């Protein structure tokens, strides 16, 4: 019975990943087209929804071109390292309220948030290895930029997540979501009026750092089509490129899930879900609520991409170190002071 549950949960999560991934690639093209007054790919299937299938088939059929003098092992490892850790990250995301005694989370880790953070930062190895192994200066430049950018933004991301951890007094995603379901979403201060500005600021900052972490525009320094011919994946062909691209969208989904879990109350929505009811129907509704939230955040990622131009590199660095980091520090300080003085925790 236990194994059955586990398989079911893995199935649901893989289902979310493998449908949201191609769907997002399609959504990216359609939304960008709509913003630019075009229609986008609308021919294959209803609303053009089978287009990603055709794209993937095409990519698989393509010849794999291995450039001369590349490090074959690292070259092959790059796309895998981009994709696999991100898929791991989904293991600790609580994607629904518990059904019976079973928590809808693949691995019920009590250090889930830490695991999530470490897994998110492993993704940069894929980009760095891919760029380094391709024996190409553009690839190398792209991957170096990506790693510098990720390190800069990881700091403010960690501090912002720390703020959530302090509010929930736990690093267990289950507890964080439960607290939000009972008291109020963290984006609105977790039920405390004192923390409302901190919550809003923290959500915004985690959103921005998540964009930087995923190398999404306006922070897509790793790719930089205009200057770097595609950056780290310049030399990749066929499904190697496909994995990079797919990995990017899966990483987007994971960070959207992280944002949802930490700030937007996870699977909770007022009047729709009840933390105390553990029926199958309530569980399914909670999964749907969670997926909807993730989809909305993903849409916002795409929407931002087609609104903003890319930052200049020094602007990215100055935004990360001179503005985000101090703000995150102040934010954590406020949460700490409010926690001790107003709510009387740790006294």
């Amino acid at each position, binding site marked *: 019975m236990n194994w059955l549950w586990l398989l079911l949960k893995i199935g649901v999560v893989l289902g979310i990943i493998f449908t949201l991934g191609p769907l997002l690639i399609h959504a990216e093209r359609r939304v960008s087209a709509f913003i630019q*007054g*075009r*229609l986008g790919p609308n021919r294959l299937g209803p609303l053009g929804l089978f287009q990603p299938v055709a794209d993937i088939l095409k990519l698989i059929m393509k010849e794999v071109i291995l450039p001369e003098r590349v490090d074959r092992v690292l070259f092959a490892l790059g796309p895998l390292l981009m994709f696999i850790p991100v898929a791991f990250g989904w293991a600790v995301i609580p994607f629904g309220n518990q059904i019976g005694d079973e928590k809808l989370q693949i691995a019920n880790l009590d250090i889930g948030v830490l695991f999530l953070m470490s897994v998110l930062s492993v993704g940069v190895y894929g980009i760095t290895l891919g760029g380094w192994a391709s024996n190409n200066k553009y690839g190398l430049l792209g991957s170096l930029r990506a790693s510098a950018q990720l390190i800069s933004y990881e700091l403010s991301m960690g501090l912002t997540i720390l703020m959530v951890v302090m509010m929930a007094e736990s690093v267990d995603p289950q507890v964080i979501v439960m607290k939000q379901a009972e008291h109020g979403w963290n984006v609105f201060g977790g039920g405390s009026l004192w923390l409302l500005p901190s919550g809003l600021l923290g959500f915004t900052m985690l959103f921005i750092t998540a964009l930087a972490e995923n190398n999404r525009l306006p922070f897509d320094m790793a790719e930089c089509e205009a200057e770097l011919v595609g950056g780290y994946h310049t030399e990749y062909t066929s499904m190697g490129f496909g994995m990079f691209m797919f990995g990017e969208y899966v990483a987007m989904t994971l960070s959207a899930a992280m944002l949802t879990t930490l700030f937007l109350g996870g699977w909770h929505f007022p009047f729709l879900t009840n933390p105390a009811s553990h029926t199958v129907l309530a569980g399914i509704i909670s999964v749907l609520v969670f997926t909807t939230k993730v989809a909305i955040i993903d849409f916002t990622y795409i*929407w931002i991409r087609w609104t903003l131009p890319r930052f200049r590199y020094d602007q990215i660095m100055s935004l990360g170190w001179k*503005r985000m980091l101090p703000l995150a520090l102040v934010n954590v300080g406020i949460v700490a002071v409010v926690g001790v003085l107003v709510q009387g925790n740790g006294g």
Partner: protein
Amino acid sequence: MQAAEETPHEPALPAHDPHGHALQSKPTLPLALRVRKMFHQAMIALYLPSIFRGMARTFGFMFRPKETLQYPEEEHRVTARYRGEHRLKKDEQGRPKCVACFMCQTSCPAECITIVARDATEWPDRDKVPLSFDIDLLKCIYCGMCEEACPCDAIELTTLFTQVATSREQKKYDMQTLLMSPSERPQVKSLAVHRRAK
């Protein structure tokens, strides 16, 4: 936007330096205003208000009518002066207007027109008529010089722009084809049938 409102009062001082850091506001301002100004400048430094305005704009654009023309189903409407496939005109009695004067052949920069003339024995109103009038559409550059040169207004470039052929020979039009209206030409007709079947 706040910065722009404030500049008329103190034109010498920019509201914020090029890096977006807030300069010290004048001590005469009341505290509430100063706090508000600082908040605005902080927001400008974080790029957020302009980003939100930009996002609102792109969101609005999503619901505007689309420019895309779904080509095989919707035809592109070209203006009447468009220079597409050629046509030879006929007069009121159904005869070709052409008098085989060779003006178009001479003016053609691509040398795609070949005319063979004969005496107009059956028609008293002209000396010559074309025995054959061939245009190689693959050589033609659609400049319209033939149309300009023609003294009898006998040749014109129609608005037909879909030109599909499976061999070079199909695009060498003889006088019979050129005298038809473009939509009746066998080459074009087969294309239209094919399109309707889809």
